[in-house]
């Protein structure tokens, strides 16, 4: 589903965020990206979302080399990627319903269908009764659930999440990860960047650890080295 081939990303004035990185993620897989700050987790997600282009290498998503995508096709590509952010990026001048509906309006879904799908997504994250609320009055955990509902409402092929539990307490973080597991069980390919090692140790899915722009692979249990 997602394949990185010798992907490098260098930011001016010469900072290597990713270095000749190879990674393959299968359809329907749940992958946790871990590593310290600056390891390259967010850069990797940005490359998938085409917020950045790599300096070298190729990225294949759904059988297509996304580096070659012309700018005008990027919006159509992004509609297949659900994205969840640490800071939620909810619009506080709109209701919860309107926030979740936004990807559907972007995709041009009919108003009747929008209503059904938004409510289904809110039901999935347990916030159906808060559809008319302003996101600003919700707790951080609830806001993140709204963000997840928004990411999932358009039935994306891939869901990426950048530190989705960064602002949550441990109990809420666990709930959030459990929610991701449930969504993954429905068939969505998931790539979640987090530095909370203890949390992901409790979850299923594959762990990929990044350090200084490269993937670390365990040689023996507990012993990591750069690939």
């Amino acid at each position, binding site marked *: 589903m997602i394949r990185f081939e010798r992907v490098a990303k260098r930011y001016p004035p010469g900072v290597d965020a990713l270095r000749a990185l190879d990674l393959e993620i299968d*359809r*329907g897989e749940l992958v946790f990206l871990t590593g310290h700050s600056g390891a390259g987790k967010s850069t990797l997600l940005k490359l998938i*979302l*085409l*917020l*950045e*282009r*790599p*300096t*070298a290498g190729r990225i294949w*998503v*759904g*059988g*297509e080399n*996304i*580096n070659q*995508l012309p*700018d*005008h*096709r*990027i*919006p*159509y*590509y*992004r*509609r*297949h*990627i659900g*994205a969840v952010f640490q800071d939620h*990026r909810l*619009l506080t*001048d709109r209701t919860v319903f309107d926030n979740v509906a*936004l*990807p559907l*309006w*972007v*995709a*041009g*879904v*009919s*108003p009747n269908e929008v209503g059904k799908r938004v409510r*289904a*997504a809110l039901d*999935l994250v347990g916030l159906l009764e808060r559809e008319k609320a302003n996101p600003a009055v919700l707790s951080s955990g609830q806001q993140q659930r709204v963000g997840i509902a*928004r990411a*999932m409402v*358009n*039935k*994306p*092929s*891939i869901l990426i999440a950048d530190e989705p539990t960064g602002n949550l307490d441990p109990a809420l973080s666990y709930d959030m990860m459990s929610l991701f597991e449930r*969504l993954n069980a*429905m*068939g*969505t*390919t998931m790539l979640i960047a987090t530095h909370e090692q203890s949390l992901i140790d409790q979850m299923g899915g594959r762990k990929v650890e990044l350090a200084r722009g490269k993937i670390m692979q365990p040689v023996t249990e507990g012993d990591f080295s750069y690939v």
Partner: protein
Amino acid sequence: MSSSKPNQSLAVKPKRQKVLKAWFAQHQFHVKDSLSRHWAVKRNAIATWLVISVAVALPTLLGVVDTQLRAIVDSFQLRGSITLFLDDSYQETAPSHLIDDVRALSEVTDVVYVSADEGLAALESALNQPGLVDGLQGNPLPAALVISIDESLGEQDYLRLADHWSLDSNVVEVAIDAEWLLTLKQWVSLIRTFSMALGALLLTGAVLTLVNVINAMVARREQELEVVALLGGTEAFNARPFLYAGFWYGLFGGALAMIWVQLVLALVGPNLSSLISHYGGATTLLDISAQTSFWLIIATSLGGVVAAKFAVTPRLKALLPGPAPVRG
């Protein structure tokens, strides 16, 4: 909620039928959304409508008045005549060669010689002061030829004939009766130029105001633009709320302008008609047709869209998180 189909390119633009349905749904959303946002900031919106309406109403009014004024001025006929004042050698007798020359012109319908004495007598009678001239040492008036001109002729013909006769050595002075009308026409022409310049200035002001309003809207909604771009919104989708906002500003501003125009015309019209009738002009009602009003409102609405496009395009280009070109 399941994921979408495998083995299908993720970046493919949907098929045309699907695109049309989607386009229609998006516009439905944007119409509702932009109107509700307009309503949400109604106080600011009304202030902007007023600015636009004044900027549109003033040149429209000047245009209406100019059109009507030209029609009225054109209805005034140069029914007068041209008077040639002769030098002293013709105080008692008519200059037959000049009369023959004048009569030979097709534009001339009649020529009357008025001697200096006849002129003085006519003046005495006009002033209604018998014996007034008795105290004069001599007759200060020159003899004159009063030439009647074909009524179908225009002002340019009058001026041409006057120029022609002024060259005759026996003619001291040429006077066009109703010269005030020529002056009036020049004033009307000047007013028209002034109106057009003022109109252009006001409309430029309205466009710049709208550009600023839209710029402020874009600045307030930067986060939304970024989020929409992340969710797959195209540049057109992101621009559309602002284009609709420009449309509503233009539409409501234009409609308000037409109300101002009707109100002012209703107030000024009767006074202007009565003034014109004093000068013998045709009394026409100052008015703007429903069709013209309709097209003006459409024009202001589209002007709003263009102004919004002008404002939003560079901002969107700067805001959208477009990818950098591939290097190496």
